[in-house]
């Protein structure tokens, strides 16, 4: 602590230069944080997917349906604990810009299958009792101002016509990253009022296995069970299903890693240059410190500490800025929840320290190796 005044005084030496370097860290870490938020938004379904759940879809593609009768046959298989199903509705609220995912669900089993979505019992009971009832995710409810008891018209794009629903329940995710944008209603309502071509069919099944370690075997048993039928299945763990879904939009991970890598490498060069200049300008002062009795290691540590403190100031401000920006992104891009995951915050700060250390290493090394006699001769 007694050396802090020396460290701080050195940082204040060239205020504009230090501020600009801190600024470059701020921008870089803000960009990193936003990229992490984008990554999390796309992959949140993957991250929070249950390890004990399998998704069963039509082998041809996700948009091809499966028979409703498969439910009972799935339940008979060894290792299957529970089964539920859902169907993609694909409607819009008022106009095309107001999109959120709507699912026609099996009322009895859906809530048990996804306990991470918290719904008050009385609201769920009200939903179950109302054939036109719906359950709205908290984010969607907030965005459109839906309240319990509201009547919400949804214009069907696959299932033609305007469908009226009563908001009976609002669910909340219990974990960071849970999707709060969904909108559920009774499959029975769709079955009764929908077109004949979709009667007796569902979009996909979600299967809960008794033992997550046997998920792969159970998935294979399911696909074997329906092999050579009119509706062959493709069963994947929920995590793999969610990841494949995201991959349809391109390799976001590679994009983020590439941009992040370029930004950090550039930052490394900027900071290394700043620190090298700073050390060069202070040759005589460093020599004086050594003359007075400060060791070579002290000088090395001091230059490294300066580099890390500069990096850390900008880095912390940058990730805080990203955290502040994320909710704005959620508002600008409805249907997605942006947040900077805690792990990415920690990683960002860690990377900042690392860049600070690496950038300061060469100048610190040359400061440490500086010979007092040579340096004083240059004064």
């Amino acid at each position, binding site marked *: 602590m007694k*050396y802090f005044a020396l460290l701080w005084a050195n940082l204040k030496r060239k205020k504009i230069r230090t501020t600009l370097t801190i600024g470059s860290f701020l921008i870089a870490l803000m960009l990193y944080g936003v990229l992490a938020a984008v990554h999390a938004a796309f992959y949140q379904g993957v991250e929070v997917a249950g390890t004990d759940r399998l998704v069963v879809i039509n082998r041809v593609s996700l948009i091809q349906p499966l028979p409703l009768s498969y439910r009972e046959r799935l339940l008979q298989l060894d290792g299957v604990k529970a089964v539920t199903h859902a169907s993609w509705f694909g409607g819009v609220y008022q106009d095309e810009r107001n999109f959120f995912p709507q699912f026609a669900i099996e009322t009895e089993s859906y809530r048990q299958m996804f306990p991470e979505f918290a719904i008050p019992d009385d609201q769920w009971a009200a939903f179950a009792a109302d054939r036109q009832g719906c359950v709205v995710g908290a984010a969607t409810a907030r965005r459109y101002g839906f309240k319990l008891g509201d009547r919400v018209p949804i214009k069907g794009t696959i299932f033609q016509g305007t469908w009226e629903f009563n908001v009976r329940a609002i669910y909340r995710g219990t974990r960071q990253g849970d999707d709060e944008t969904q909108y559920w209603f009774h499959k029975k309502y769709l079955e009764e009022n929908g077109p004949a071509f979709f009667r007796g069919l569902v979009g996909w099944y979600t299967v809960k296995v008794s033992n997550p370690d046997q998920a792969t075997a159970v998935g294979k048993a399911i696909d074997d069970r329906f092999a050579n039928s009119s509706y062959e299945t493709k069963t994947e763990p929920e995590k793999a299903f969610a990841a494949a879904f995201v991959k349809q939009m391109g390799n976001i991970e590679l994009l983020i890693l590439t941009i992040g890598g370029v930004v950090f490498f550039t930052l490394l060069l900027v900071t290394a240059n700043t620190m090298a200049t700073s050390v060069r300008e202070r040759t005589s002062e460093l020599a*004086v*410190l050594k*003359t*007075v*009795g*400060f060791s070579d290691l002290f000088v090395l540590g001091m230059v490294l500490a300066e580099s890390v403190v500069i990096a850390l100031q900008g880095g912390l401000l940058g990730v805080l800025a990203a955290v502040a920006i994320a909710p704005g992104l959620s508002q600008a891009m409805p249907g997605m929840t942006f947040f900077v995951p805690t792990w990415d915050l920690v990683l960002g700060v860690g990377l900042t320290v690392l860049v600070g250390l690496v950038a300061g290493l060469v100048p610190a090394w040359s400061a440490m190796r500086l010979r*007092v006699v040579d340096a004083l001769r240059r*004064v």
Partner: protein
Amino acid sequence: MVRVDGKSNGSLIQVRNLDKRYQRGSEEIHVLQGLNLDVEAGDFVAFMGPSGSGKTTLLNLLGGLDVPTSGSITVAGDEISALSAQKLTSWRARHVGFIFQMYNLIPVLTAFQNVELPLLLTKLSKAERKRHVETVMELVGLADRMQHFPRQLSGGQEQRVAIARAIVADPTFLLADEPTGDLDRRAADEIMELIDRLVNEHGKTVLMVTHDPRAADRAHAVLHLDKGVLIEAA
């Protein structure tokens, strides 16, 4: 009593057969040649001589900033020419106070913080460090300039701060390399007055390199260096 014949025993600083050579390209420069020197505690020695005669090299060797090619330097019983670089650094912190021609204060630190620097290497508490700094700032007559930065001080005042920094940890001896070289006559006289007081009133041992005969006149002994050889002035 300062001697250059190498025949004294038990002096504070004892230099024996000191040789220093540099290699510059293919040429070998023999800066100091078999030099002997004995300085007692409380002595004030001035080294004079033409540029390139080896004065600063001798000072660097005595201060442990450089190592001799051969020969030995013993200070208060420690043979510093045998110490490792690391040990030499901590030895310097305890035993030597440096005063430079260009003051060499850290510009971003206040006068107080500059003077406090050597004390950061000790185990003194913050309050003790403050007391020490205030005492020496009082001694050099700058008690009212402690929070000033070097750029806010005159050359003479900067050198006073540098002297305060050199004496604050109470080193065994002071090395001054042309302490008045960058000052006008009046400021130079004031600095020499101060160094005089350190020697005569506070018993400090001072070894000073100077080109200024008036500064040298204040020393107890004036030694001339010429072509690497030390000669006692009449």
